[in-house]
């Protein structure tokens, strides 16, 4: 039952899960970070309010966030094929994961940046800083603890989504849990994969929080 092959498969599952989660989060931020910055900056009360831009981006963000992940996964199969060349396996799963994570990340970034003290922004404006300098040297720096906390939450969410993608041939630990636990009634393997997913989640959380408090200079 617990043959070497099974352990190898679980090992590969861990690797695939990590691969999907980390790469998707990375690309999610490549899209979501500037997206969130634009949302925070153009909103009323932002440093460069622009109603039309905010309205449009806000609407797109809401639309994308309201499509359930599993539907999105199927909906964008043509896009996935175009980018990766196939629609199954862990690399293919990264595409829907990124599309789903980016608007979520954008919202996280937006809310982090909106927490930055208005007085500090005003001080930078009074020194003659332009919009880009304020984003770079004030917003992203002052909000960094909140940004890291947000990234931790995103990482956990994307790990969960990646497991969900396993049900439709996405690979990783979720895929193993479905195949063995659901189709073959091998509950023990399913339990092991679930425990591993929980462990991964714990590690992400711990690492994220450690980094967040490590870079916070507000405590003496």
């Amino acid at each position: 039952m617990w043959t070497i092959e099974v352990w190898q498969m679980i090992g590969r599952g861990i690797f695939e899960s990590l691969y999907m989660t980390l790469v998707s989060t990375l690309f999610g931020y490549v899209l979501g970070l500037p997206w969130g910055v634009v949302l925070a900056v153009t909103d009323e009360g932002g440093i460069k309010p622009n109603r039309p831009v905010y309205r449009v981006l806000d609407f797109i963000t809401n639309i994308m966030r309201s499509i359930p992940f599993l539907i999105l996964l199927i909906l964008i199969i043509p896009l996935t094929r175009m980018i990766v060349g196939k629609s199954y396996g862990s690399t293919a799963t990264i595409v829907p994961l990124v599309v789903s994570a980016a608007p979520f990340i954008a919202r996280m970034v937006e809310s982090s940046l909106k927490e930055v003290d208005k007085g500090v922004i005003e001080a930078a404006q009074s020194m003659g800083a332009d919009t880009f300098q304020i984003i770079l040297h004030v917003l992203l720096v002052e909000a960094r603890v909140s940004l890291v906390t947000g990234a931790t939450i995103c990482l956990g969410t994307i790990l969960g989504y990646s497991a969900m993608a396993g049900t439709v041939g996405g690979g990783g630990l979720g895929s193993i849990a479905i195949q063995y636990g659901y189709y073959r009634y091998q509950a023990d393997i399913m339990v092991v994969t679930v425990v591993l997913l929980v462990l991964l989640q714990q590690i992400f959380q711990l690492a994220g929080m450690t980094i967040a408090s490590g870079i916070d200079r507000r405590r003496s």
Partner: protein
Amino acid sequence: MDYIVEVQHLYKTFRTKDAQVEALRDINLQVEKGDIYGIIGMSGAGKSTLVRCLNYLEVPTKGSVLVEGQPLSELSGPQLRKLRSQISMIFQSFNLLMQKSVIDNVCFPLRIQNMKPDQARAKARQLLSVVGLSDKENAFPSQLSGGQMQRVAIARALASDPKILLCDEATSALDPQTTQQILELLKKINEETGITIIIITHQMSVVRDICNHVAIIEDGVLVENGLVEDIFNHPKSRAGRYLVVEGKDPDEWEKARLDRERRRGEKDLLHEDRRIRIAFSSNSSFEPVIGNMVLHFGTPVNILRADTRDVKGVARGQMILGLPEDRQLQEEMIAWLIGRGLAVEEVDDDVDY
């Protein structure tokens, strides 16, 4: 006379959903180069809005702001930002970057102007020594006291070699002793660099201690302005009288007004003496004027209030006297006091003592 800052017929109206608030109405003032100019008023009187109009963080609804003769409304975005580096600002809540060290905070305005990092740090070190915080350069703002944070903010404000320093309630969050130290520091910087300082405050003591000129703002209107000394000797507006005669800070004005209304009825029943306020200047405070007056006229006067203060190193004082009933004697006494070089004025019903 060339003014470094000139405000002409400035109005600022804020529009909310269903109302509009006139925060400032027809403000006119001129600030001389190298001056320390105080703007005093109650919280919500519009003084913070006014100071933000001086660097166009708030754009006036009407009227103009001129800095060194240049109307700010004519500047493009980049030109305005360039000018802002010449008009620094410090704040009540310090507004330091909490995630950056003290020295990085001071370097910040220089980084914005693309100064080389080592050059910026050298300058920041020098400024930290000016404000007496050389030993804190690697500390973070959260490790500092309020007074220390404001010193960092001052060093940061000076980094770009500004011509004007705007202080928005810069000492309001500090205890009296720290306030004194910060005011002394500002005064020292003003004397050494010739920087023009504009101070927004609701504390008369701040104006008294370091300002040369003062403007009194009440409900968005400039009710009186001029030399601190002149306003001290002859406050013309009601707000000025509250400030000077009663030593009441703007936040107490409303209460004073209400108290008076309540007492007005009772007062009419009492016999009213004629009351005058006399202000001592530096030379007259050594002479026992009132004593001499009483001896001279052989009639006592009632001293209703008396106090002297150290104003910019010179003893200044004021006294409120209740004069005898005899109308002619009253006039003689007033003439006698004026003859002694004192500023004398009637105290009307509008002022408590």
